């Protein structure tokens, strides 16, 4: 695990975060009591299936949840400062400067009618008092760092003149512009091809290693996390059901859901044999079962699982777990 910030305070600490969507059909508890820490220079993988609340967690950190969604509880401590309830102007100071975000679709970052240099110069000058030429120089350097050939010429191109992989690189370059302390990356390589994904992962790994930027990598792909991250949190129905170092969680999962996810990866199975499958499907957030949300699909479920949602326990140092009947017995 990477070294903590000064005085052992983590760079980013999310505490009991709750983000709910109040709709006509009821209240969807998309994020329901999520707690994790991100240290300087660390890569944390946040893994979950669609609807698990992993993306909403990322959006909540930067105050980017749109109504009817609302952060209804908990704290997001960035360097000790609580961002929940912080003023919009304070959040604007932080966004793109201290904490940057990369989205799955780079066109969420890029404005299609503005040239790349216009957008990048704007992003620099929003946070630093530098002249246009200096801002442009920084933009060019950032493009060079993410491996875009002939950055000087590409600066005057429009987003549509780039391929998908190159656009994602531009989005990453914009995230890197102001040397942020934290980058939140929401499925940034999901839409890309294998060889292009490998290029992006390579750049991210190199850049974070060089600059000490902490990375929160949100994905559904366990294989990407295993290659990239130091620690991993597994989310299910708005809660982190298991967390720990990548080696610990992926080699000896405790939560039946994590074990099921790992088991259903085709390369972990005998070729041509039946895949381990988790029965059923992810429950609707409007109709979560009582107790543990996973119990209807869980092979270990017993009566007590229906009573109350399992609290977070620490089965081993550096690991957390929400389960009454883990895959194997733990010491605690």
């Amino acid at each position, binding site marked *: 695990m990477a070294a903590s910030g000064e005085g052992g305070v983590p760079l980013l600490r999310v505490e009991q975060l709750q983000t709910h969507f109040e709709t006509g059909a009821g209240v969807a508890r998309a994020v329901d009591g999520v707690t994790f820490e991100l240290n300087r220079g660390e890569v944390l993988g946040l893994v979950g*299936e*669609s609807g698990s609340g992993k993306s909403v967690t990322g959006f909540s950190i930067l105050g980017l949840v749109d109504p009817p969604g609302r952060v209804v509880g908990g704290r997001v401590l960035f360097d000790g400062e609580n961002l929940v309830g912080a003023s919009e102007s304070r959040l604007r100071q932080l966004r793109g400067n201290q904490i940057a975000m990369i989205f799955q679709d780079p066109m969420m970052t890029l404005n299609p009618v503005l040239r790349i240099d216009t957008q990048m110069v704007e992003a620099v000058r929003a946070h630093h008092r530098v002249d246009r030429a200096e801002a442009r120089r920084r933009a060019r350097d950032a493009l060079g760092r993410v491996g875009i050939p002939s950055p000087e010429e590409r600066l005057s191109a429009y987003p549509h003149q780039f*391929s998908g*992989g*190159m656009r994602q690189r531009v989005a990453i370059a914009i995230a890197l512009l102001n040397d942020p302390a934290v980058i939140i990356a929401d499925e940034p390589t999901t839409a890309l*091809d*294998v*060889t*292009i*994904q*490998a*290029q992006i*992962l*390579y750049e991210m*790994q190199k850049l974070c290693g060089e600059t000490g930027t902490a990375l929160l990598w949100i994905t*559904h*792909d*366990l*294989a*990407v996390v*295993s*290659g*990239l991250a*130091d620690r991993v949190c597994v989310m299910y129905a708005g809660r982190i059901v298991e967390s720990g170092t*990548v*080696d610990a969680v*992926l080699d000896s999962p405790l939560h039946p859901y994590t074990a*099921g*996810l*790992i*088991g*259903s*990866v*085709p*390369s*972990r*199975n005998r*070729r*041509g044999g*039946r*895949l*381990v*499958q*988790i*029965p059923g*499907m*992810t429950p609707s957030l409007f109709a979560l079962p009582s107790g543990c949300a996973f119990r209807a699909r869980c092979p270990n479920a017993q009566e007590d699982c229906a009573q109350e949602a399992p609290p977070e326990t620490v089965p081993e140092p550096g690991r957390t777990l929400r389960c009454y009947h883990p895959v194997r017995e733990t010491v605690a």
Partner: protein
Amino acid sequence: MSAARGEPLLRLEGVSKRFVKSLDLAERVARRFGSDVQEEVVHAVESVDLEIAEGEVLGLVGESGCGKSTLGRVVAGIHPASEGRLTYRGKDITRAAGAEAKKASLKIQMIFQDPFASLNPRLRVAEIVGEAPLFHGLVRRSELAGYVDQVLASVGLDASYRRRYPHQFSGGQRQRIGIARALAVKPEFLVCDESVAALDVSIQAQVLNLFMDLRERFDLTYLFISHDLGVVEHLSDRVAIMYLGRIVEVAPTEELFAGANHPYAQALLAEVPRIDSRRRIFKPVEGEIPSPIDPPPGCAFHPRCPHAFERCRLERPLLKEVAPGRYAACHLNDRS
């Protein structure tokens, strides 16, 4: 299960598919006045030779734009081939017409990627599944309801779902409806185009298991198109790898994953993220996939290939047998 044994179920010989973007009015006028505007031709699939044996699962792998979906559509009869010949059970189906063409096209069915876009939202499940077998006279109207229930049961859907609309189902269930629709006309050959790509990992495993069960139960043959090498490795007997419209390597799955011959196949295999590799150093291939409108001369992979030499820039390598049952298109095999 090698294709060499006996007559293959499906044979492709020199199959090409080109898409032409014809000139619009302004461009035609400009051309009349001597301007140098040309029609753009996309070479989506270029002279593909392939054999698929009965009961085999052939995985077709490549990155976006390599032509794998187009090839799948040509096989399923959705796009006519621009050139070349398709033979199904020894019969030429490329230019078949009338009843014979209909019969062949029923035997080859396709399952699509997006379970949200490939089902008519205004039809009930019973109509989606029952329409084709009724139209083609496979069942009588009086027996249709029972038949639909039976097909739904074979893909693991409860018969009580038959009156529902597609929007009432989750992604995994919709994909099952798509599979039921294909199975309803009693096909022998399924073309699966990225059929599990849109599904979550746990649901993906369920659908992959279903594909394997169905293969055994109905003696199906698959052309399984995917960009996900893990899925293809698990399911396929043989794997074909495409790059920019051409097949660059075909090999039995185990042999391919033990060591690929073509440099592109090697790079692709090396970059698959695997759950067992921790904090690995990603060492990517440089560059991007070139445009199929203007493919590079010689070997299409030479601008990105670490081993490229003079001949690769000039001459296009042909797919040759490099070991029994293994084919690759690379000049390096002629060296040494």
